[in-house]
């Protein structure tokens, strides 16, 4: 599990940990049922106060993203969590907002962006099918 902490930007560290785990779950890089590292392990890996990790885990549990199992550790909650789709949409929307802001600043309009998205989707599909070569 790869998490990166920026201690400079003013966002509380527990929130950074929470957001990144949510992102890993929403993007499928952490699978339902997968075990998260222990509080101690993650604290030593990230070099942050263990209480901070404990708080992030606690709030993720409240949000239904992870679950504590008796005698065992903390696990990614089973799929079908009501949060999953909502959370995925939220993440995507944040990215879209960023994209649009940047596009508008560079002088592109919505039509340009949509066209580019379609082109890039097409290119991705072609690469996948191995049908390169007719550009």
């Amino acid at each position: 599990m790869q998490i990166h902490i920026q201690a400079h930007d003013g966002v509380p560290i527990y929130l950074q940990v929470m957001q990144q785990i949510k992102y890993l779950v929403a993007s499928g890089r952490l699978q339902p049922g997968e075990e998260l590292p222990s509080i101690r392990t993650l604290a030593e890996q990230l070099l942050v106060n263990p209480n901070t990790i404990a708080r992030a885990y606690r709030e993720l549990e409240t949000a239904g993203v992870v679950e504590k199992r008796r005698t065992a550790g903390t696990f990614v909650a089973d799929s079908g969590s009501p949060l999953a789709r909502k959370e995925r949409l939220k993440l995507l929307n944040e990215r879209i907002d960023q994209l649009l802001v940047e596009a508008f600043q560079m002088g592109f309009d919505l039509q340009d962006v949509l066209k580019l998205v379609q082109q890039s989707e097409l290119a991705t599909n072609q690469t996948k099918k191995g049908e390169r070569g007719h550009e």
Partner: protein
Amino acid sequence: MSEAQVSGSSLVVDIQRLTRTFGDKKALHDVSLQIPRGSVYGLIGSNGAGKTTLIKHLLGSHFAQSGQVRVFGVDPATHPAEVLARIGYMSENREIPSWMRVQEIMNYTQAFFPSWDARYAEELRQMFDLDPKEKVANLSRGQTARTCLLLALAHRPDFLVLDEPSSGLDPVVRRDILAAIVRTITDEGRTVLFSSHLLDEVERLADRIAIVHEGRILLDDALDTIRDSFHRLTLRFEHPHAEAPRMIGAVSQEGRGDEWTYNCRGERDQLIEAAKTLHAQIVQETPLSLDDIYACTIHQA
């Protein structure tokens, strides 16, 4: 840490109105500080702010000229043996006898601490990759720091006191030191006090901080509480202004025309109310980093 835990015998350190002068220089001025058991306390301040002087009072190296110092409930200046046996201390200058070898300084230090855990000391020595036969004089800066850290940790102290533990060290050694602090915290009930000017470290590790400036403590609270009381707001006004309109709680401001950004101290609700009174719209709101909070606090002083 709940407020209930911050009272009575759960205090590892209790300093009341401590003042200390050296000649005509006031090194500490009316300092009060309580360190609850189990907390990780970050002491922030520039060089000469009084951090080391404060720490030396906890070790009993300085007696309280006026005011009172209690560590584990007793005065460290009159009960040094009792207090020091429970403290792991790493000094800012990391001075250890240069003519000794690593193994000798370990044996020597062991003699002072009944609770010395020889197996743990050996484990740390191997982890820090220290040659037991090497003379202290020949150790690199990083190896010296690791040796000092080993000596501070091997008796499994209840209270770990680190004075600028990572200043002047490369990132690898700094990592060792931070990891040691994290492990110490993980052990139930241990308390840590560390001073640092690297606010990144403080933000990662501390749950409470005190900002020391010119011998006074300017700010002292749980890090979360402190964060909640500082905000950066960008306001858009109905008309352009040549100077920043005055805003309640603003510590500093920058901008021009109809848009001004304020670093503010105060309750969020009050600040929003203040913006409303100025007929301004809040266009952006971001938290302040600890660096900014430090700068604001010093600026206000």
